[in-house]
């Protein structure tokens, strides 16, 4: 059997996606009616009146809905998906505004028309009278609490969360040295190239609904629709078609549109589709990242971190549908590969009159990494030691695994690192970026008037959170192997990676394996694609299902070949006696044998009827503990998350005239356990790094004091083009996870996590100024340089 697990197999998805044959949301539903929304132009306002009459004469208008039209559970607030004991002031919005709007972009009126152009004509004619209220914009305003986003949530604080281990006060007091500083991280957003979208078909005769959504969780969207529209889940099918990127924003559910579009389809008795436009995505989906941090660190003469006390104010926007997952992750993943004796992180998660905040790739980790790694750089600076040396002295050592931090992770389970080799990772990074030779590089650059700097950052990422995923594997009579899992795909290459796993486990050709994801018709139980969990969770689930099918195939074939299953092997889809390939039968034939039939409708079925010659009259055609068909289903539910890790280094050059930052080198050492497909993992890292570069240097949501998002377009929200993303050198380290059968760890988010910390480190090194806010623009750097660099450096110490 040829090895296929671990190989850089070319992707199954690409044939259709490179020829225009993908099926993204807006490629479906030709002829469906189109929905469009009147959205709040105010950050905070009372809705006094909605006059739809001017729109009623529009040719092609089918329906106009406001909150008043909603009934039953649909008229109730949207679900608060992830409750938490610390989230005492959680609030969610309504599918359509119920008398008050709390951010620009909140949906107020839904219009359905024959096409989108007409729907938007009607939207433009509807007159909503608002009574504007003063908005709360930015963390400072939220903390000041002179105004409230929700009248019944005092101080704008939805949650006060504390994570701690050890006696921080005592350790800080006893520490030979202390430093204290504050920093700010701006908002960014997932910003997939395809926005959200929903398309619904109501079958009146079956009283059943089929919904396509550009989502990261079709099973949970189904559950939400069934609950809100009062349908049996068995009457709701939800399918995630090809999805044009997610990066977190599409895990939120149900979005108002995911309920309203199917609801309208049922009311109108016709297909309805809504496709988000780019401005809608900016002002009515979700953002992330915004935090203010105050950090106090105690350390000894050697630079060993003894205590870390972190205070965070996290901006979660106008509502908390996804709970406080982001600050929970920041506060638990902040520690990275290090082991202070005492740690405390206290978070206030605050309301503002801005777009909601939910996980964006990294999900709070880039902020935590920024806090920890900037601390390490400062300690190195204070002690006058090399930044890699300081880190080396603080790393968890390979013989300390499993390493228990004494905290509770985002899955509600103890934060215990399963495996890793951080010192080796650091050694590889220094080698890859030629850290030790950099002073020569710096001197050479300086000789020609150029300013360069080097920086690094490390992270540990909890991946593959539970509770579970499942897999189903079925061998058809043709020998085709159908694999399904409930979680969804947004470009991660699951059709390829899961096919590699099943081909390897079952012993069939890769080309014979066909994978379906995110389709409730094929697999009904799933959690979703987020938290770098798909490979770990569904990868192991399909492996377990394939093992079950293999065992069944060997049992059936052993009976037919009159030998023991232990004597058999499956090679390239053929079950054969080990050492005697002449005694063999195709897996396809085993599939036929597995299903005793009454009716001989074709040749395969004839071979399997209960009147076939090999039938044993003394045994039931299907044994008591057996079932027909060569298929298997299994679930993977890990005890805890598995922890991937890595380190990044960057060399930057800064133009002292323009303060433009150019990344000359970018090196990544990455450990996600065993690799299923190194080509795909590397692609994930590249994409993550690009988003890290965006977050470090370019991406920010510019809200004005009125809560208007001033840069809600690709003209003004600066995502990196090819000209901004450097060439990335990668090295892989493989420390298998002991927590799952395949030994794998997640890889999806890793690339983005240390970007801001790493580039801040390099820029500081180049210019000798303190970076305390990200992203950092040329204008910011210019101002920092204009002030006395020495003063900047000392004031923050």
């Amino acid at each position, binding site marked *: 059997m040829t090895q296929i697990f671990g190989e850089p197999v070319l992707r199954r998805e690409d044939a259709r996606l490179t020829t225009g044959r993908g099926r993204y949301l807006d490629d479906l539903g030709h002829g469906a009616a189109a929905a469009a929304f009147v959205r709040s132009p105010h950050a905070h306002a009372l809705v006094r009146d909605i006059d739809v009459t001017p729109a009623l004469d529009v040719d092609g208008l089918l329906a106009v809905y406001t909150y008043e039209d909603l009934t039953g559970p649909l008229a109730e607030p949207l679900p608060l998906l992830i409750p938490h004991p610390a989230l005492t002031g959680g609030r969610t919005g309504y599918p359509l505004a119920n008398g008050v709007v709390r951010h620009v972009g909140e949906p107020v009126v839904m219009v359905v028309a024959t096409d989108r152009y007409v729907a938007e*004509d009607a939207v433009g004619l509807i007159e909503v009278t608002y009574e504007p209220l003063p908005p709360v914009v930015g963390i400072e305003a939220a903390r000041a609490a002179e105004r409230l986003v929700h009248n019944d949530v005092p101080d704008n604080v939805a949650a006060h969360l504390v994570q701690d281990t050890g006696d921080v006060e005592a350790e800080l007091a006893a520490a030979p040295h202390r430093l204290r500083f504050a920093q700010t991280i701006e908002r960014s957003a997932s910003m997939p*190239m395809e926005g959200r979208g929903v398309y619904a078909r109501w079958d009146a005769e079956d009283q059943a609904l089929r919904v396509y959504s550009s989502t990261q969780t079709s099973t949970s969207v189904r559950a939400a629709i069934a609950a809100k529209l009062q349908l049996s889940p068995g009457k709701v099918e939800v399918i995630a078609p090809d999805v044009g990127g997610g*990066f977190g924003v599409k895990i939120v559910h149900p979005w108002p549109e995911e309920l309203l579009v199917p609801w309208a389809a049922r009311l109108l008795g016709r297909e309805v589709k809504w496709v988000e436009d780019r401005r809608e995505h900016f002002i009515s989906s979700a953002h992330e990242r915004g935090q203010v941090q105050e950090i106090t660190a105690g350390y000894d003469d050697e630079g060993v971190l003894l205590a870390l006390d972190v205070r965070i104010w996290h901006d979660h926007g106008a509502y908390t549908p996804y709970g406080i997952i982001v600050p929970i992750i920041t506060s638990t993943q902040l520690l990275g590969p290090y082991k202070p004796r005492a740690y405390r992180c206290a978070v206030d998660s605050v309301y503002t009159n801005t777009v909601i905040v939910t996980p964006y790739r990294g999900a709070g980790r880039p902020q935590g990494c920024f806090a920890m790694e900037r601390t390490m750089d400062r300690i190195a600076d204070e002690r006058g030691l090399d930044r890699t040396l300081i880190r080396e002295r603080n790393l968890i050592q390979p013989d300390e695994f499993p390493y228990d931090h004494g905290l509770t992770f985002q899955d509600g389970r103890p934060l215990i690192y399963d495996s890793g080799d951080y010192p080796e990772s650091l050694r590889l990074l220094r080698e890859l970026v030629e850290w030790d030779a950099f002073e020569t590089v710096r001197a050479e650059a300086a000789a020609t008037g150029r300013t360069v700097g080097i920086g690094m950052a490390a992270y540990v990422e909890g991946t593959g959170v539970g509770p579970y995923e499942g897999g189903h594997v079925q061998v058809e009579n043709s020998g085709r192997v159908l694999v399904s899992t409930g979680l969804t795909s947004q470009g991660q290459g699951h059709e390829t990676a899961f096919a590699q796993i099943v081909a390897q486990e079952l012993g069939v050709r890769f080309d014979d394996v066909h994978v379906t994801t995110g389709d409730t018709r094929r697999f009904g139980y799933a959690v979703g694609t987020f938290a770098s969990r798909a490979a770990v969770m569904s990868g192991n689930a399909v492996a377990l299902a394939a093992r079950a099918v293999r065992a069944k195939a060997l049992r059936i074939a052993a009976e037919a070949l009159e030998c023991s299953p232990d004597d058999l092997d499956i090679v390239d889809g053929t079950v054969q006696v080990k050492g005697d390939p002449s005694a063999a039968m195709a897996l396809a034939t085993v599939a036929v044998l597995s299903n005793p039939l009454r009716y001989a409708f074709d040749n395969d079925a004839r071979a399997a009827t209960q009147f076939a010659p090999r039938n044993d009259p003394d045994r039931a055609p299907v044994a008591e503990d057996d079932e027909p068909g060569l298929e298997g289903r299994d679930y993977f539910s890990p005890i805890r998350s598995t922890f991937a890790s890595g380190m990044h280094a960057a060399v930057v050059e800064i133009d002292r005239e323009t303060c433009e930052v150019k990344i000359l080198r970018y090196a990544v050492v990455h450990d996600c356990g065993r690799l299923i497909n190194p080509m795909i993992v590397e692609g994930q890292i590249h994409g993550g790094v690009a988003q890290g570069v965006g977050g470090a240097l370019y991406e920010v949501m510019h809200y004005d004091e009125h809560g208007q998002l001033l840069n809600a377009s690709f003209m003004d929200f600066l995502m990196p083009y090819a000209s901004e993303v450097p060439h990335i050198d990668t090295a892989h380290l493989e420390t298998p996870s002991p927590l799952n059968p395949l030994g794998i760890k997640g890889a999806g988010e890793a690339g983005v996590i240390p970007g801001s910390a790493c580039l801040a480190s390099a820029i500081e090194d180049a210019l000798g100024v303190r970076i305390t806010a990200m992203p950092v623009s040329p204008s910011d750097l210019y101002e920092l340089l204009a002030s006395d660099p020495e003063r900047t450096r000392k004031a923050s110490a």
Partner: protein
Amino acid sequence: MTEQVRPVTLVVNGTGHRITVPVRRLLSDMLRHDLGLTGTHVGCEHGVCGACTVLLDGRPVRSCLLFAVTVDGADITTVEGLAAADGTPHPVQQAFTECHALQCGFCTPGFLTTIAAALQDNPDPDEEQARGIIGGNLCRCTGYQNIVKAVVRAAAIARERA
């Protein structure tokens, strides 16, 4: 309000069409919704991301910035028209698969059309020129490194085939 409509005659991927469209219909919408060529994707509707790029008389244009009625008489190539008549993938399509130059694939058609046109002008780009070729298209998944590689590889495939 009544829609003002006009007939448009054009050739798309070698096939002639004569259709009547509202005057305000974008070329991208006409291709996608009237002609069913959904391979052309719309990522921003303001001409920045490049996902909707098609070839208009051989030159790359943003189809979301053009009204369909303004391209009357034109010859248009979309991603569906890049492969040879016998189905052989265009060199850039093959290179994208070989180099893992796509992930979600949503921006991909715009890259493919852009690169196909650029390789006509520069059949042997180096890596820096390759970065320049794709410099006006946004991709949120790949970090561009493998796309750059694919541009260079596509040129090599074209030469191998010649």
